[in-house]
């Protein structure tokens, strides 16, 4: 009996040892997290008198971001910046992660790149920010990038420094589009970041396909075919699909258009109940109709390999939706054989205006590179020359109203190679009219991602709408334990 008891104890010990691997994983963060466990569940509120610190003399400028866009822009357009060692790598979805170095006016720049997927970028950034106070000067985050989807989460904290504290004046930013400033304005009216781009979005269509389907690739005629959602669906099913083309790569392509035109936030006014706006439901219904009619290429995630195949003519995808950065940064326009490489895209306003993304540069409280950050912000986002160069070189829609209006004129000499010689700037400028960012919440990114994932199973017929919705609630409440599913 004694031996038996002993053997049981030994077995348990063995199991315990085998399991310790995952116990460890659960907990090594737990002990570090314990250090700041004193909080009472409230976000640090910003008092108008908060004293931000931003000093000079740091030798290392740490930049946190989620892709290589800003890095590439710096390499091209930032005077005084030179690229250095690069140890980033790409995963199967094309997401880049890792670290890279560069130098900027004698200061070492360290890039820390974590992809956005599954909140990884924000989690990584949050960890770094929470340790900011105790970090050594050279390890402190000095500058990070944020998207409109979650800008509020950081803007309404003391982690982000108002730009006037860096010495940037209203005069410096007077030419920027107002909405780019609204996104990053905190409760006290401080502007906490700057963007070098505007992101009004349009519909890009495949010119060759348009000629085959409609007999013309003239933007005005094509726009007539996709002027509102009813016409859009009709054309997609009756004409585009009938000719063997797919209107878009995935139903997720149009998600942003709907989610940008909602009339309520993802989280109800009580701050904890998840809320699915009727217009989001409209996206589900419209998309389901298109998928069932065989008018969509697949139900894959955005950015994946299958989704990206439509950038090439063989995949027979008719259209993509997005802002200027999509054309230049994502559409494989520099790969031979792609539609963009041969200037095969055309741009139209599409069924509804929307904006997508946009990247804001923000300085972090406690930085020791204040003057470098100020210079980067001025050079990248406030200079009309850089703005024009960005348009010319990389088809950016830059954050400088007069410069864009000038370039939009027919005699400006600018035309987009990717868009087959079209000048899309006026379309972008028109898209900015009436652009409002009213229904943003700190949970947008997580909710958008989870919702698209869950609806995939509804589009594929594996779940009913309600079942898919349940899956969405489950994912979101796991991601954000403070939220709850509506009763």
């Amino acid at each position, binding site marked *: 009996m004694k031996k038996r008891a002993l053997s049981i104890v030994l077995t348990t010990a063995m199991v315990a040892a085998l399991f310790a691997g995952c116990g460890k994983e659960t907990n090594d963060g737990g002990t570090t997290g314990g250090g700041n466990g004193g909080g009472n569940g409230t976000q640090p509120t910003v008092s108008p008198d908060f004293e931000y610190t931003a000093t000079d003399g740091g030798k290392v400028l740490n930049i946190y971001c989620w892709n290589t866009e800003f890095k590439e822009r710096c390499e091209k357009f930032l005077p005084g910046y030179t690229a250095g060692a690069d140890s980033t790598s790409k995963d199967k979805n094309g997401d880049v992660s890792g670290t890279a170095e560069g130098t900027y006016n004698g200061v070492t720049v360290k890039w820390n790149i974590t992809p956005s997927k599954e909140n990884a970028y924000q989690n990584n950034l949050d960890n770094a920010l929470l340790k900011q106070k105790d970090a050594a000067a050279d390890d402190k985050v000095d500058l990070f990038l944020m998207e409109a989807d979650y800008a509020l989460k950081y803007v309404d904290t003391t982690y982000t420094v108002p730009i006037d504290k860096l010495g940037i004046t209203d005069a410096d930013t007077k030419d920027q589009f107002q909405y780019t400033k609204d996104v990053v304005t905190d409760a006290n009216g401080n502007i906490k970041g700057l963007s070098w781009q505007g992101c009004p979005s349009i519909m890009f269509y495949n010119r060759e396909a348009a000629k085959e389907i409609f007999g013309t690739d003239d933007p005005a005629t094509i726009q007539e075919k996709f002027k509102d959602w009813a016409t859009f669906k009709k054309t997609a099913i009756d004409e585009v699909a009938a000719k063997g083309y797919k209107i878009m790569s995935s139903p997720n392509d149009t998600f942003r258009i709907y989610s940008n035109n909602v009339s309520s936030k993802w989280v109800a006014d009580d701050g904890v109940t998840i809320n699915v706006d009727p217009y989001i439901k409209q996206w589900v219904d419209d998309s389901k109709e298109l998928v069932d009619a065989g008018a969509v290429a697949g139900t894959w995630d955005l950015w994946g390999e*299958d989704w990206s195949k439509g950038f090439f003519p063989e995949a027979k995808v008719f259209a993509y939706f997005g802002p200027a950065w999509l054309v230049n940064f994502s559409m494989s326009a520099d790969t031979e054989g792609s539609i963009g490489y041969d200037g095969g895209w055309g741009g139209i306003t599409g069924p509804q205006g929307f904006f997508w993304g946009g990247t804001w540069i923000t300085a972090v409280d406690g930085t020791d590179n204040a003057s470098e950050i100020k210079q980067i912000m001025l050079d990248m986002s406030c200079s009309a020359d850089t703005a024009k160069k960005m348009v010319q070189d990389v088809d950016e829609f830059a954050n400088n109203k007069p410069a864009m209006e000038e370039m939009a004129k027919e005699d400006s000499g600018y035309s987009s190679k990717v868009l087959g010689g079209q000048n899309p700037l006026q379309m972008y400028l028109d898209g900015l009219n009436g652009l409002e960012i009213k229904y943003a919440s700190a949970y947008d990114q997580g909710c958008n991602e989870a919702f698209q994932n869950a609806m995939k199973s509804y589009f594929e017929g594996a779940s009913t709408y309600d079942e898919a919705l349940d899956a969405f609630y489950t994912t979101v409440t796991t991601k954000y334990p403070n939220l709850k599913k509506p009763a």
Partner: protein
Amino acid sequence: MSKSKNSKVVRYNRWGYIFLIPFLVVYVIFQLIPLVSTIYYSFYEYYRVGLMQVGPNWIGLENYKSIFQGSELLPYFKNTMIMWLIGFIPQILVSLLLGAWFSDNRLKLKCEGFFKVVIYLPNLIMASAFAMLFFTLFSDLGPINSLLLNSGILKERFSFFSNAAATRSIVGFMNFLMWFGNTTILLMAGMMGIDTSLMEAAEVDGANSRQKFFKITLPLLRPILIYVIITSLIGGIQMFDVPQILTSGSGSPIVKGVKTSETLIMFLNDNLFSKNYGKAGALSVFLFVITGILSLIVFKVSGNDKKAK
């Protein structure tokens, strides 16, 4: 006389304790403390949303309640077990067969070392690299689909990762490929430990190979077989890397509103994304208990406890 002998024993004992210190220190730091704090935090509300830290606040058994009342635990446990079985059944059969061949004195296989290395090789590939490879192979526009289309087996593209059975089978198959070599080596070690005189005696008595395998090899292999089953079961419950990478952490496809390739540890990992140490801790404790119970069942059924007397 007896006194001096006694003190010598004590002195020797002291050395024993000193030699144990490195193990104890490592064990306490890396295993015992995490284990205890996992259990400790499982009774607390303790998570972070964005930059907002909640807790730790004592909430008793709330975390356990939310796990057991939630709709996730049972289906994810089912997923884990199904994917484990899909991989484990072929794994144990193939390993037994290979082990029997490799250890058969009369078969005298050539290049035995070479084959042993080859079947062990898949285990050396990183699970993530392996998963990425399979993801690319089976993706909607990938080579397997093209192959099946061109050879006329399929009429239209089959979306492997939108089909629960296909995704689970791919996960099971990958686990099988990665682990059958390891199992073969273990079983072979067990088989080579079997007294050859027993085999010879059986042969003299006129036993054929099948009888030898079922009447001699298998019964004598039982201890090692049980070890293989227990460790594989524990490994199965901890299944994480392959489905995580293969489905990009989404546990898709979702069928009837339930993720069909989400394992328990993937669920644990999801909770850790919000640094939810409370709920993740409760889940860990639950997994710990389940693994313990499963091990005891296997232990009892195999009759090991009686033999120990």
